């Protein structure tokens, strides 16, 4: 990193830092240069860290009162809700926290897609981020099983059954996952254990994610490299800390509004009915944040095919840095990509809507179209677009004052296009 070398002032500090450079780390985190043109979509990294810590802390307290046993799990949740001091608050924060975590992570991912943050040299950050996202889905799924309500039980049954579609070893894998021949007490116990473990795996990956970020530094809305330690960057503390804090407080307000005034709207009422292996709910629906993948799963007529497509939908994102061949990062300078980006957002939300609908009639047709487009977008459109799209000229630096104002960027581009053919580079 290009910051100047940090030397602790005190003697004790020097002694300690030469043995374990914690002071250097702390200095680095404060002085970390961030592009000054980062907008509020860049505050979601901090918000997500907050979400993770909230989940871990509330989860820790819940684990002190929860009983992972098919006969007592549902009852222990009610014990937490009624008899534990502020147990209702802790549980509602944890349950809604999961939804808020996903809301933030989706914004974070789509921000990355819009501004091309996954492109060189940030591929590793992107891949670690996706691993975090996958672990988040697994953790959230297992967490939803723990209250042992109807949706817990039947959701677990449907999802674990997916593995039985794998040829030859599928049945054995499912039995192994269950710890028996159906979703039962052993399943609940291991899900509890793994749910607890995964949160710390996520925590570890988050550290790697941030570490990998601090090597090349932040991307920015203009998407061109910034010159570090010039007037194009500002130290993380206090500038970004204040900005992140302000955005975080807005986010927390929405979060707590749900907790206090609508704590159950994001869940399914059926999960307040204790699990009953003999009664299947009318519709088995996963939590909202898994719905787009659920729609893809059901769009494919064969079970194995559905499973393959569903997992591919996630793993295809890992290849994105190489599928998107365009060198220009920010969609601001990619007129066609910008439109396709919003189309993709629309398709994903549509798939989410369809995931909550029964797979029949027009819903099924739309699911198939949506799934088709989702894959075409990544596998066909992006590679071709990199080759054929005519991108707008890039400014020379992010500190171009012209770019600071809304509307000016368009004006700049308009003027620049008049002088096409001339040396655009010299345009200042």
């Amino acid at each position, binding site marked *: 990193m290009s910051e100047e070398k940090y030397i602790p002032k005190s003697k004790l500090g020097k002694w300690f830092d030469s043995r374990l450079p914690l002071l250097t780390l702390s200095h680095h985190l404060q002085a970390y240069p961030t592009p000054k043109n980062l*907008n509020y979509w860049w505050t979601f990294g901090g918000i997500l860290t907050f979400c993770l810590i909230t989940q871990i802390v509330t989860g820790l307290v819940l684990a002190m009162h929860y009983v992972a046993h098919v006969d007592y799990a549902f*009852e222990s949740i009610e014990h937490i809700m009624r008899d534990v001091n502020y147990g209702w608050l802790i549980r509602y924060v944890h349950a809604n926290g999961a939804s808020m975590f996903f809301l933030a992570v*989706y914004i974070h991912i789509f921000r990355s897609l819009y501004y091309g943050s996954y492109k060189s040299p940030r591929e590793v950050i992107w891949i670690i981020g996706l691993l975090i996202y996958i672990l988040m889905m697994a953790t959230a799924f297992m967490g939803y099983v723990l209250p042992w309500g109807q949706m817990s039980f039947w959701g677990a049954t449907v999802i674990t059954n997916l593995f039985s579609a794998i040829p030859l070893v599928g049945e054995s894998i499912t039995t192994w996952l269950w710890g028996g021949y159906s979703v039962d007490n052993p399943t609940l116990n291991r899900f509890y254990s793994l749910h607890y473990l995964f949160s710390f795996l996520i925590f570890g990956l988050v550290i790697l994610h941030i570490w990998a970020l601090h090597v090349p530094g932040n991307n920015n809305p203009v998407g061109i490299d910034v010159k570090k330690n010039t007037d194009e960057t500002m130290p993380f503390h206090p500038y970004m800390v*204040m900005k992140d*804090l302000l955005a975080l407080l807005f986010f927390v307000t929405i979060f707590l509004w749900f907790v206090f005034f609508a704590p159950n709207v994001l869940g399914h009422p059926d999960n*307040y*009915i204790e699990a009953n292996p003999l009664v299947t709910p009318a519709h088995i629906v996963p939590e909202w944040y898994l719905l787009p993948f659920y729609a893809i799963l059901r769009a494919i007529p064969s079970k194995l095919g559905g499973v393959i497509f569903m997992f591919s939908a996630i793993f295809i994102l890992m290849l994105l840095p190489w599928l998107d061949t365009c060198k220009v990062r920010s969609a601001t300078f990619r007129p066609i990509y910008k439109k396709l980006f919003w189309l993709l957002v629309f398709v994903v*939300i549509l798939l989410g809507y369809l995931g*909550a609908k029964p797979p029949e009639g027009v819903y099924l047709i739309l699911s198939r179209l949506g799934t088709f487009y989702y894959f075409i977008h990544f596998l066909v459109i992006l590679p071709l677009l990199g080759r054929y799209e005519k991108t707008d000229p890039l400014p020379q630096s992010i500190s171009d004052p012209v770019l600071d104002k809304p509307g000016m960027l368009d004006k700049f581009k308009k003027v620049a296009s*008049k002088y096409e053919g001339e040396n655009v580079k010299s345009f200042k």
Partner: protein
Amino acid sequence: MLNHLSKFIIKFFIIFLITLIPFSAFSEEKKINFIKTNWSFEGFFGTFDRSSLQRGYQVYQEVCSGCHSVQHLSYRNLSEKGGPEFSIEEAKAFASQFEVEDGPNSEGEMFMRLGRLSDKFVKPYPNVEASTAANGGAYPPDMSVLAKARTGGADYIYSLLMGYDEVPTGFELDDGVYYNKYMPGNKIKMSEPISEGIVDYSDGTNSTKAQIAKDVTTFLVWASEPHLESQHRMGFKTIIYLIILITLVYLSKKKVWSRFGSKEEEEETFDKVERAITEYEGENPKTFK
């Protein structure tokens, strides 16, 4: 900066609302228009109507408790803040109307004793199977969290209680099954539980059918969310606190960022550049600098 922030907030809310679309799909599953009632416990400042809760408890005991359990409530809850708020003596008296199995004693025998405040509500049947067998094969659900376990919540319960009606012609019903407008599938195994005057209210309230339905629904909402009042109170305080905090942080942020050149300076440079661009538009690009 305010401009940037407000634009961000607007965009954020739009995206936020769009992500809510999938949820609406949940609630659209069954398009039933429940009877809308004004519930005192709804909204920002919602609190329970104390006397309605007390009457609701009476209805539960006299009408529902023959078949339905509320196994997660304890008798002590009846005297706790935010609930029906009976006096401790009254709650003790309610508890002692029941016999509870306890033990084993020092001889290893189970024995029966009078109910105490710390006991859970006594169940009408020892287990789900006994309850199902005694009710023609349909398990009368435990009502501890019923208001949260049904789409529509309080409105659903109220509508269901008021929704018994003449069977429409051509609608097939088996023996022991009743027609209800608001039950999914319109078939229900519970006979109409309440009717005018089925309860003789001890506080002298006129026991119309609607009144009884309203009271028992209120009671069930409290049973499923006994801390609802403190939840609302704390929520209101928290939001006020956050608004103040956001204002302070916003001002601090502005102050901190102003070190990077004042707004006026920025504005000036911006105007200059804008003027330069408009002046040179269409001119010889060579002179454009």
